[in-house]
């Protein structure tokens, strides 16, 4: 294309993006079309990808397409395999995209649509995408080593240990909060409980089919599995309407929590082919299919956003979680903008497939852009709901009261009018008995998605769409839950193996049972407390998860910054240094407030003290008084965990600064572990796979 024409096109994209974003930002009081969100996002992503990412790759990282990648040099036909870039992109995206970008924006919508949307866009292009791309690059240059190993080799033992502890802690908190989200979606909903339970035997059927009936026929087995899943969504209605069958699937939160713990334990010790692998296939297809469907539906329907740009809850009094806009919108959005967890996939896993360094931009930066786009769609699905409906679903009984009249009065008084009839009609349309206080984000996202799908593809099937959306979320939440429990088990076996080598044997039954029980007990404890907590639990667990995930991102960015400085690229260190600084500011501020705030909805210690005083003075109702000691203990524990996270964060930062300072001052530092240049022989290969 002619150069002037090309420049003109980019100028047009810039103008279009700026207008769309400006329109979203300054709009007040009028309903705004969701299409503007999509346009703003796509323009910003294109510009960032074409200019910022390309500049980082060419100038800062100096990617070298003549250099053989680990996949080529160490090719073994098993895990190191040079693979076509689109295939690697598919694997990478399927691995990084989990429930985080769906839940975070849904919760953050309590501040209005604007703050969350801005952070999803800005945080991704300047932070998350850069982190993923730089980590992918560094690992590719270091024989596909893991983040922990790189931290240890390049910064020192402290960095490596910190990465290991951070990963393990995130896993525990993440699984607990995900478990809680599924429990809240299934509580007293026989339809949802049946559909979610059915995913387990369906996965097993698929597993046996692939392994024994028709070995290796992956697509055939998956097609059968997807059909069975859809049948279970439709069949759930019959179960819910059946007098005796419904009782089998109608449970309290606590019963469901125990079942999930038993399930997690079983998944961690059963062979992967039976449950984990087939379930992962199903969840990947459903995930990619549903996200595509949602994008198509939003484009077709172009729904109006009903949530205001900014709500009064930026002052910290929000019903879904307490805390001011700064820093809690950043902590809450988490994975849609920047996720430390991705650095674990970008190092170790994806580099083993990468056939050429020039694919790093598309896979590292591009993969995260797509994840950010998923977060934008979740934000749209949450904000197309009437704000009254959104708050009624997501506010816990502890905040708005446990009976419907109290809840609607309180929510209407905030300026978001809602009536009991409206909620009852909605619940009936969705095939549920009630939608009040279904916290955790999954049900409100499902209502949002159902209303978008319903309007785009026919209104008659709202209840089916709702339960399809619940199944969609639950299936990959459970995949993260069981895969995470298993990884946690392996990590613990690895750690304990240093003390007692026998424990490190991954197939020694006593070790398997012991470590799996510890991991399940770890997240099971937080899940249990979350379920009995009248304030819903998500308000405590999600910020804790956000802090932990941002901490892991800070470790990845520290490794990146440290290596850039060590390799004489101090002037470019800002590309990772600036997002790192911002993360340190928000994580430290959030942690500080969670520990010291006198507001009982934010500060863990003040909430514990307040509850202890009320318990001592006998003003608590009997039901709450009986659980109060457990809640007090948990609040104190949460405060200490937060303190631990933030101390770990600062240790890593100081260690990284020490390495940078020594390098700048010309003092000896650990040598670079970058592997030697070797000419790629794949350059001429036609498809590079």
């Amino acid at each position, binding site marked *: 294309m002619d150069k002037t024409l090309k420049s003109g096109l980019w100028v047009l994209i810039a103008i279009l993006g700026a207008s769309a974003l400006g329109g979203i930002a300054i709009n007040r009081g009028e309903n705004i079309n969701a299409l503007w969100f999509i346009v703003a996002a796509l323009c910003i992503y294109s510009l960032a990808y074409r200019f910022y990412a390309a500049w980082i790759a060419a100038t800062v990282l100096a990617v070298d397409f003549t250099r053989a990648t680990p996949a080529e040099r160490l090719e073994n*036909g*098993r*895990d190191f395999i040079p693979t*076509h870039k*689109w*295939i690697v992109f*598919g*694997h990478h995206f399927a*691995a*990084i*995209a*989990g*429930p*985080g970008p769906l839940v975070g924006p849904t919760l953050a919508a309590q501040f209005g649509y604007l703050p969350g949307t801005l952070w999803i866009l800005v945080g991704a292009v300047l932070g998350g995408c850069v982190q993923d791309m730089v980590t992918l690059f560094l690992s590719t240059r270091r024989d596909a080593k893991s983040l922990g190993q790189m931290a240890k080799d390049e910064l020192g033992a402290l960095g490596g240990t910190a990465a290991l502890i951070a*990963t393990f802690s*995130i896993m525990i908190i*993440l699984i607990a909060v*995900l478990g809680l989200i599924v429990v809240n979606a299934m509580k007293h909903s026989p339809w949802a409980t049946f559909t979610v339970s059915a995913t387990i035997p369906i996965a097993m059927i698929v597993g046996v089919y*692939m*392994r*024994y009936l028709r*070995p*290796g*026929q*992956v*697509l055939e087995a*998956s097609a059968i599995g997807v059909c069975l899943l859809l049948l279970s969504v439709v069949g759930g209605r019959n179960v819910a309407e059946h007098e005796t069958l419904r009782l089998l699937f109608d449970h309290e939160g606590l019963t469901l929590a125990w079942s999930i713990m038993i399930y997690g334990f079983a998944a961690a010790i059963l062979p*992967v*082919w039976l449950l*984990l*692998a087939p379930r*992962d*296939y199903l969840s990947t297809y459903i995930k990619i299919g549903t996200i595509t469907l949602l994008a198509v539906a939003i484009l077709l329907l172009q729904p109006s956003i009903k949530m205001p740009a900014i709500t009064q809850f930026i002052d910290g009094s929000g019903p879904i979680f307490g805390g001011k806009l700064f820093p809690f919108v950043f902590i809450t959005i*988490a*994975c849609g903008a920047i*996720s430390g*967890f*991705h650095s*674990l*996939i970008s190092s*170790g*896993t994806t580099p083993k497939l990468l056939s050429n360094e020039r694919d790093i931009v598309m896979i590292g930066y591009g993969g995260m852009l797509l994840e950010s786009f998923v977060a934008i769609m979740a934000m749209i699905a949450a904000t197309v709901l009437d704000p009254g409906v959104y708050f009624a679903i997501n506010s816990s009984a502890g905040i708005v009261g446990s009976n419907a009249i109290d809840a609607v009065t309180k929510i209407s008084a905030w300026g978001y009018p809602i009536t009991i009839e409206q909620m009852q009609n909605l619940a009936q349309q969705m095939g549920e008995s009630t939608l009040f206080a279904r916290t955790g984000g999954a049900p409100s996202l499902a209502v949002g998605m159902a209303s978008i799908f319903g309007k785009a593809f026919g209104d008659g099937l709202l209840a089916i769409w709702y339960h399809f959306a619940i199944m969609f979320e639950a299936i990959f939440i459970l*995949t*993260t839950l069981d*895969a*995470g429990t298993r*990884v946690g088990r*392996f990590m613990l076996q690895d750690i304990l193996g240093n003390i007692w080598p026998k424990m490190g044997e991954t197939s020694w039954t006593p070790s398997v049972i012991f470590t799996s029980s510890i991991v399940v007990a770890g997240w099971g404890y937080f899940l249990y407390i979350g379920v009995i907590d009248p304030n819903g639990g998500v308000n405590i667990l999600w910020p804790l*998860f956000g802090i932990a*995930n941002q901490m892991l991102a800070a470790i990845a960015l520290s490794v990146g910054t440290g290596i850039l400085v060590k390799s004489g690229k101090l002037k470019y260190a800002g590309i990772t240094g600036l997002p790192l600084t911002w993360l340190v500011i928000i994580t430290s501020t959030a942690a500080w407030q969670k520990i010291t705030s006198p507001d009982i909805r934010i500060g863990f210690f003040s909430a514990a003290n307040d509850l202890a005083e009320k318990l001592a003075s006998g003003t608590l109702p009997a039901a709450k008084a009986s659980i109060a000691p457990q809640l007090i203990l948990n609040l104190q524990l949460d405060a200490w965990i937060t303190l631990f996270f933030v101390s770990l964060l600062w240790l890593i930062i100081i260690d990284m600064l020490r390495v940078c300072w020594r390098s700048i001052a010309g003092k000896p530092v650990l040598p670079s572990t970058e592997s030697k240049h070797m000419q790629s022989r794949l350059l001429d290969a036609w498809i590079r*796979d």
Partner: protein
Amino acid sequence: MTIPKLKYFWQIIRRLSGDDAYEVYLKNFHNEHCHHDSTERSKPLSKGEFFKQWQDEKWQGIKRCC
């Protein structure tokens, strides 16, 4: 969409899902054995055996995120 494009798309789906993993393995295996013409010609694994190994290896380490 033309037929070749659809075929290419189907290829991508098969490769992504691992549906053609055994075919890739066989191709690699024969290539390897052409290069090193060893006297002891080992046989490739059967589809069932290969799939077991492939699936178990695929599930080592962190594969899924939040």
